[in-house]
């Protein structure tokens, strides 16, 4: 049975009606009342009362503050000692669990893969077959790998060489000392870098210089050989460039910046990487354009085995090699003293 109510006058709807009929409660009305009350109360209080109250309030405030400080200290103490340990342990356990489970899942996956080197594996299909059987004939490169990366899949390699270039640019943004900032600031940074250099790097080491004097020409020659031989045997732009870059770094270590700055500054870096990359991009654009539109590019393949053969591969190898060598050397000098 529903409860019957007989106090309809006091239920919410009539009350709302009455409130609206009165014109509602204005915010301003309340405020003035409170203000006037407060001011009345103030007038009644004597000066002593006021002073006493203030003292009481101040004491109370102080107590609260002390209490809060103690609480805070305790909470902080917990966070510093037990809490931190707990969280660290929790994270460590979670991280280990995570790693172990990922390792387990990946190992299961690997065990379910086609067995390594199997004859009927999916990777032994028409793609690799054509690379192996027709690679020489179609690209003119005795080294199949060179034919693959610089002719069949040259677009990917174009992207790869730009990865190197963009990495060098990113390091320059990060580490290069600014040229046109405050000159005093710049000279201070320079001096710090020089001081670091003198402290940590070898300077006029006679053994190093003698060994480098013999080794650097050989390394350079070998690098050039690897570069120029990329389409004929193992090697190519990336490896040859790395060898030349290593030779440059060794030379710099032995003879210092004064020796290398005679032929390699930031301007050289910019010019060489611009020429190499622009040549690569333009040559390959032309070749892509001709290939896609079924035009004859007019680039002959030459006699396989000759040094000047296999179309663009030799020149692209040289371009890639220059970019790689410059990038390696630039990384080293930028990390060492923030300039070239």
């Amino acid at each position: 049975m529903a409860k019957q109510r007989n106090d309809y006058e006091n239920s919410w709807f009539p009350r709302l009606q009455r409130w609206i009929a009165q014109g509602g409660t204005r915010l301003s009305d309340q405020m003035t009342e409170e203000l006037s009350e407060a001011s009345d109360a103030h007038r009644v209080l004597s000066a002593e009362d006021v002073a006493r109250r203030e003292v009481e309030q101040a004491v109370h405030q102080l107590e609260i503050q002390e209490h809060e400080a103690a609480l805070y200290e305790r909470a902080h103490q917990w966070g510093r000692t037990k809490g931190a340990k707990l969280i660290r342990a929790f994270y460590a356990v979670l991280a280990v669990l995570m790693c172990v489970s990922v390792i387990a899942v990946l190992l299961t996956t690997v065990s379910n893969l086609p067995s390594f080197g199997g004859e009927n594996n999916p990777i032994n299909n028409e793609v690799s077959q054509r690379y192996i059987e027709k690679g020489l004939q179609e690209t003119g490169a005795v080294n199949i790998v060179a034919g693959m990366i610089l002719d069949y899949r040259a677009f990917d390699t174009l992207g790869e060489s730009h990865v190197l270039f963009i990495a060098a640019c990113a390091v320059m943004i990060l580490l290069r000392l600014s040229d046109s900032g405050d000159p005093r600031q710049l000279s201070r940074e320079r001096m710090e870098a020089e001081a670091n250099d003198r402290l940590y790097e070898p300077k006029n080491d006679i053994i190093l210089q003698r060994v480098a004097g013999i080794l650097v020409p050989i390394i350079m020659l070998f690098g050039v050989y690897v570069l120029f031989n990329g389409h004929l045997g193992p090697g190519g732009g990336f490896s040859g460039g790395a060898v030349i870059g290593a030779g440059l770094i060794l030379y710099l270590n032995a003879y210092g910046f004064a020796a290398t700055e005679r032929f390699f500054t930031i301007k050289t870096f910019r010019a060489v990487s611009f020429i190499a990359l622009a040549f690569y991009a333009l040559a390959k654009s032309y070749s892509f354009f001709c290939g896609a539109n079924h035009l004859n590019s007019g680039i002959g393949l030459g006699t396989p085995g000759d040094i000047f053969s296999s179309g663009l591969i030799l020149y692209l190898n040289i371009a890639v090699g220059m970019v790689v060598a410059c990038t390696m050397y630039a990384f080293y000098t930028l990390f060492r003293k923030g300039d070239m």
Partner: protein
Amino acid sequence: MQLWQNLPFAMILLPLASASLTSILKGKAARRAALTVITLVTLMAAALVIFMQGYGQSYTFMMGHFPAPWGNEIRAGMLEAVTALCFALVMLFSVMGGLRDIEHDILPDRQNLYFVMCELTTAALMAQVFTNDVFTGYVFLEIMTIAACALISARTKGRTLVAATRYMIMNLVGSGLFLLGLTLLYDLTGHLLMSNIQEKIIALSATGKYQQPLTMVIALVTIGLGIKSALFPFHTWVPDAYSSSTPTSSAILSSLISKGYIFLLIKFYYRVFGLREVVNAQVEDVLLVFGAAGAVIGSVLAIRQLDIRRMIAYSSVAQIGYIYMAIGLGTQSGMTAALFQLMAHAICKSLLFIATGGLCAASGEKRGFTSLRGAAYRNPVAGAAFVVGAFSMIGIPFLSGFVVKLAYAEAAVLWGGPRMITVLAVLAISTMLNAIYFGRTVVTLFRLSEEKIAQQQKWHSGPCFAVACAALSLLTFALGLAADPVLAAIRSGLEMFS
């Protein structure tokens, strides 16, 4: 082969080739070169959209003299064309709108390198959009990752180094997982070309061989790209990276680079694995859950921020969650909604970041809400642009955000069941949360007593800024008012996709 079919090729190669040229130019000339190149790419994208409409089907383009499984190949369809146009437009106006801040934030002798990064990002985005080869996708993803680090750390003030380091660590984990997935995929199928992989995968699932590694591949690719595009539990690098860099960088990072990864993921789902395989692997369910969680938690975190840039960064987390939620529906209409949101959010977020750059510049380079009080009176252009962006984020009608929410609701209702309830609930909650924090920001920007309004010093961010703000606002309106052609283009593009 018609001549216009070379457009995608030119759109990738032009910014790539001009990057090395820009690196030897000085600041001003580099800026001009970059703007010219990006404008040209935009025009080419627009031309491609027009030609595609007449052509009505997708085509492949041989990169070199060798046909597809042996050589590289790119592919263009309606969806690729529209996405490329959207990306190019956003790129152009992000760079234009942030020019003053670039000059202010970046040391003069490094500005040319900054524009090199912009150009290479453009090239990489175009390559991601048009690639038909998984490894090409990886190479250009690598370029985008490094460019993004440089874009963050180009500004020398603030927490940029910490942000860039954090960004790099998280993103390299993502790249690593993605590459691992690709290696396994190559081992299973023996191909790198998308269409050939799909053929092989269909054959594999018919025979039932290698199903566990295949699921693993789908998971690895999804997690890798998810980390890189700041899917919810992996979003920790976002706030620092987006808030401490220069506005153009924030705009490029949040509205282009993360979107490029998502587009690549959708491409993988459609063109590599096939949508059915992905749904069978139940990766979609995981994406739905994390996307929904991200949409809500990102917004909640955004409410707590006191720094306007960090707030927008967290709002990005929420919006990325939105995209993944729609992908998680696993239906054609869900994908359409996700792709529309991808474009709408790309435009809207760059508008917000650019406008915020103007507002902060007018308030003495401060980003706290207390310093920004009344900033809209100091920089009216930026204020108006911010209002447009904020309202679109909330989902006010006539703006792109509204159409996004409509498309989401439609996709959810078509599916029905618990997924519908999840999506609708997330839509309702996140709209409310968006209204709270964007509404609060708009009120803050305009709250000033009348006497003070007259006293405010006017700040002019220059004509480029005004043009960029106006263009991005117009695009937001255009997507809201005339969404149907874009939605139709996305639908027809998705049909060409598979």
